[in-house]
């Protein structure tokens, strides 16, 4: 009961803002008579989305599975790497420059390589999604794990806590807010990386739909696909917010 209420309370303003913006857009497009190939009207986009629900639905399903898998794999890799680096500081000193270099390369540059390495199927999408997420999570987790002050770490050490014990009981909880921030940023990055990878080579998915429709000057379908993808990521974001509240309850 209470949770349903709080869900409503968080969903309502978003819905209101969304509807407001769409209305503004629709009215603007009608007022200035903007041609569809420059900016379609939301009404037409929604109509197209409904008309092509089957196509878009199957594409969204594939993209979501890839994005979520990539997000999980990347989060695990990022967290594991951060933990390893905290446990073995020389590793951090040695690897962080490399991490920064790789993170500086736009994930798009890796798409063709990943397609070569992992094929055109789901593997390459999961890989590119994981790549996009893992570095954000790694950098945020690392910063968060370093947050506890020396005094608090010393207290744990005085109890004879092992590095793992300190990590588990002090550093990880203290890092939670920072990690969750990393997840929020990472989610957006992984979704877009997956969609772009799909555009550049895939058998199916939202990215392919966008790519093929653009070439066929079918902007209504392009926009409908983007709409559907954004809605999908909004849902994922909602899940993240719920997780955030669970993990960082003490704020």
């Amino acid at each position, binding site marked *: 009961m209470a949770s349903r209420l709080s869900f409503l309370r968080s969903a309502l303003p978003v819905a209101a803002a969304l509807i407001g913006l769409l209305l503004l857009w629709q009215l603007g497009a009608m007022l200035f008579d903007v041609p569809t190939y420059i900016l379609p009207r939301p009404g037409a986009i929604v109509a197209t989305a409904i008309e092509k629900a089957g196509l878009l639905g199957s594409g969204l399903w594939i993209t979501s599975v890839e994005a979520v898998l990539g997000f999980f794999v990347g989060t695990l890799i990022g967290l594991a790497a951060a933990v390893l680096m905290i446990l073995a500081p020389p590793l951090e000193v040695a690897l962080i420059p490399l991490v920064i270099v790789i993170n500086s390369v736009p994930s798009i540059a890796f798409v063709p390589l990943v397609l070569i390495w992992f094929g055109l199927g789901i593997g390459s999408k999961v890989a590119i999604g994981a790549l996009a997420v893992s570095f954000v999570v790694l950098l945020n987790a690392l910063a968060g794990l370093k947050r506890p002050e020396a005094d608090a770490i010393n207290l744990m050490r005085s109890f004879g806590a092992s590095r793992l014990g300190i990590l588990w009981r002090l550093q990880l909880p203290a890092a939670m807010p920072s990690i969750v921030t990393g997840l929020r940023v990472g989610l957006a990055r992984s979704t877009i990386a997956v969609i772009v990878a799909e555009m*550049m080579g895939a058998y199916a998915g939202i990215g392919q739909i966008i790519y093929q429709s653009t*070439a066929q*000057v079918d902007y209504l379908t392009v926009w409908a696909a983007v709409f559907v993808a954004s809605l999908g990521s909004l849902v994922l974001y909602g899940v993240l917010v719920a997780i955030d509240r669970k993990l960082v309850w003490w704020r």
Partner: protein
Amino acid sequence: AEPVSVRLKWLPQAQFAGIYVAKAKGFYEAGGLDVTVNPGGPNINVETLVASGADTFGIASGTEGVLYAREKGLPLVCIGMSQQMTPFAYVAYTESGINSVKDFKGKKVATWFTGPQYTLFSVLAHEGLAQSDLQVVSQPFSMQPFIDKQYDVATVTLYNELNTLKEQGITDIKLFLPDDSGVTTQQDSIVTSEKMIKEKPEQVQAFLDATLKGWKYAFEHKAEAVDIVLAAGSGLERKHQELMLDEIEKLMVAKLGTTEGLGAIDMKSIAAVQDSLVEFKAMKAPVDLAAAFDTTFFAKVPAEDKKM
């Protein structure tokens, strides 16, 4: 000189040598035009940019692109066609035992889903195959999956991917040309907007004259043309561009290109393409071809500028 722009369907390369040569040799300037060449890229839809007025002219995808654009109501007109022959071809490894298009049956065939898939469908139809007889998949712009044998047949353009394969030492392949199956789809359409044709036909004429003259000059002075292309792009390989120019010449001087001259519009092949697109439900209904393709400008191009 009037400032105008031309949008290409891809990055600077020998595929567009005529444009760059016309600019570099001052053909546009002589025609009273100050041309800016804007390259293309992935998801840069030339038809949209030209129809919206963002660019004055364009070298767009090809027959099917003009038809889609017209069907969606874009005020776009084609005034010339660069490639007279279908530039797409299908490749299979010699060892695969595929000796004709008919042997595609039951195979995994990759093609680009940016329009060329309908060329494949037409070819299949001409060869008496149903689409359900084989598995057609979307091809990425890398040839690597074909090299890795992830599918049996792949699509190439004669001017690029085929050369890429050869450069990587892959020569034990067979080539199947759509034209051999009786399917011709002209590519690299020269387009402008209805507004330009109505308001500044003299500029449209001047642009087409100079462009075709540029092409002719490029084919007659290939080394110089490649130099000009290399200067326009960044990080281009001379060897690859030379091969590309050779292949582009073959495609442009084929068929009507030999009789009518560079840039000729083949209304018969266009009608055939439209019929197949309607048949394959890529288009809901046919469009008015006379409005979409304006041959009057091509007719007025001086013969010495377009005839090789």
